[in-house]
């Protein structure tokens, strides 16, 4: 059974999604989906252990060897990503049963869980596969289910947001398709590692340059890198809370993974970073993204909007670390992937709890909530501190390595700008804290009770993870370091 782990990771939720229809009772489906997620979670842990112990696992689908068939190639990088996605997917789903009772119609519940599992399948598929075209197929599974999930939101703006996301996402996917097509045309293969060896001969051609450009632009659309982020804020703000928590913690991470995978593994470092001014372009976009998004976040009235813009800023940090192009920089990016998933998962879930109790996440509705929902609000505070990067939280760890990486590479201005960006985070987090703790409850509103335990448990799991991995950094740093070193070809 151990040999089949890579494929089970993807196939288990894939088979479970249609099975949901046969159960057709909201609570039963929830329990079923939760079990399935937990299985994938265990599966990914086993995979990670296996990969750390014995190196890359290759799984040939259909028994056909690599360039002819499709292969799954699990190395440290994607084992790490699989673990992040499956854990967040499980923890967030725990609160789903309570949350969607308020936010969705009864007859949509089964469909919701099906879509959720399919979305999970899509992400696993993107991350696990070693075949360029297979990436496109699974990208579409995860995107289509994401559009539908966002469109489930009660607010009519959710529909418009989903439509915009659909247009942008499909343009992005088509760009990726064009890029893959050109690569295939020049090399005659679709397998990633095979592409890597064969691209060396044709690396100088204009077609490969254009293919590279299209792939990067397509991925950046999915990544919501500034200035291609326009679809993101509304999509996150009006989707059902569970969907927001899930997508915010995972979807952009998968896109970052794709960026790393294509530039490092397929094209190779020397091509990606020397033949094009990619490094400086992405560095500038990342920095501008951090500032533009953080400043916009300060002026938002909807707390989900604040956090959505903050997500765009965090993507900026990841891109900065990536474009420093050293082993430490990529490691900082990977750490931030992990940490940001913990923070945003927790924060958006807490917002889901607020949504559940008062039916709105407008900033002024938060007045006085600090006393009425103490556990939820303190979770938001800790999550916010982590977002800022205060010591003893995970946010500090990744920012620290980001600083170290930029200083090591001699990029002092970048380090200063990163620190300034964190100051902006203080401002927007403070606005929430001020409302919740230093304002009297909104007059005319009925007393609000603390969130139900089904919310508190997953929220606090994530909050504790925020603190735990902020203090005991061995696990996350070790894995991220090993993954980034293997990308740079350094043997630990």
């Amino acid at each position: 059974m151990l040999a089949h782990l890579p494929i089970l990771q993807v196939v288990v939720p894939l088979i479970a999604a249609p099975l949901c229809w046969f159960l057709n009772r909201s609570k039963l489906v929830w329990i079923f989906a939760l079990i399935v997620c937990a299985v994938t979670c265990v599966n990914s842990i086993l995979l990670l252990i296996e990969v750390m112990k014995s190196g890359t696992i290759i799984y040939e689908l259909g028994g056909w060897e690599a360039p002819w068939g499709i292969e799954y190639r699990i190395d440290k990088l994607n084992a790490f990503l699989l673990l992040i996605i499956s854990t967040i997917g499980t923890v967030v789903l725990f609160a789903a049963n309570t949350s969607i009772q308020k936010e969705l119609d009864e007859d949509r519940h089964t469909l919701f869980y099906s879509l959720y599992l399919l979305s999970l399948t899509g992400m696993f598929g993107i991350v696990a596969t070693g075949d360029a075209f297979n990436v496109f197929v699974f990208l579409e599974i995860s995107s289509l289910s994401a559009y539908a999930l966002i469109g489930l939101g009660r607010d009519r703006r959710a529909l418009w947001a989903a439509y915009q996301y659909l247009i942008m996402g499909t343009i992005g996917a088509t760009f990726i398709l064009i890029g893959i097509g050109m690569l295939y045309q020049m090399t005659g293969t679709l397998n990633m590692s095979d592409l890597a060896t064969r691209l060396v001969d044709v690396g100088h051609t204009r077609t490969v340059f254009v293919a590279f450009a299209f792939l990067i632009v397509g991925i950046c659309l999915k990544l919501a890198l500034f200035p291609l982020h326009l679809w993101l804020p509304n999509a996150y703000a009006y989707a059902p809370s569970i969907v927001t928590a899930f997508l915010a913690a995972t979807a952009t991470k998968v896109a970052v993974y794709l960026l790393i995978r294509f530039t490092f593994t397929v094209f190779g470092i020397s091509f990606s970073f020397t033949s094009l001014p990619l490094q400086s372009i992405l560095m500038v976009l990342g920095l501008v993204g951090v500032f533009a998004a953080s400043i916009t976040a300060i002026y938002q009235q909807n707390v989900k909007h604040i956090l959505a813009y903050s997500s765009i800023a965090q993507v900026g940090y990841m891109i900065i670390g990536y474009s420093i192009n050293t082993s430490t920089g990529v490691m900082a990016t990977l750490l931030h992937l992990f940490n940001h998933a913990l923070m945003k998962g927790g924060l958006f879930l807490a917002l889901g709890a607020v949504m559940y109790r008062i039916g709105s996440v407008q900033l002024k509705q938060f007045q006085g909530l600090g006393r009425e929902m103490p556990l939820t609000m303190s979770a938001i505070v800790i999550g916010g501190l982590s977002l800022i990067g205060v010591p003893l939280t995970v946010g500090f760890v990744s920012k620290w390595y980001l600083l170290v990486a930029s200083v090591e590479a001699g990029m002092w201005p970048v380090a200063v700008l990163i620190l300034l960006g964190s100051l902006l985070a203080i401002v927007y987090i403070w606005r929430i804290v001020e409302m919740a703790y230093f304002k009297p409850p909104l007059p005319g509103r009925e007393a609000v009770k603390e969130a139900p335990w089904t919310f508190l448990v997953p929220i606090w799991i994530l909050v504790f993870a925020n603190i735990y991995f902020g203090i005991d950094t061995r696990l996350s740093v070790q894995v991220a370091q090993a993954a980034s070193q293997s990308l740079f070809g350094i043997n630990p």
Partner: protein
Amino acid sequence: MFLGLYNYWIVVLLMMIGFYIVIAHGNLVKKLVGLTIFQTSVFIFYITVGMVERGSAPIIAEGISDYSNPLPHVLILTAIVVGIATTALGLALVIRIKEAYGCVEEDEIQKQDQLSEDES
């Protein structure tokens, strides 16, 4: 040289027509039509890549030794399916948008959103 590449250029032209419709048009249905054209042109690009001069359709038969490349065909079969799936979902969204906003024009929807944002 120009003769050897003309097919690609026509594909690029078609691609750009579709792309222009997607980003410039305000009507949501037309955007989807543009998206379809954009995607189809990519399909044509793939098939063009797989074409072999004097080759025949990739179904094994006696007396034929040159076949065109089957792999792009397979990829595009998959991509066509993905395309129709996207279109169907997009149209479903448009129908819901029409019901919720009473129109399918981008400007109009944004205006209405602005209004409701100001109210809240």
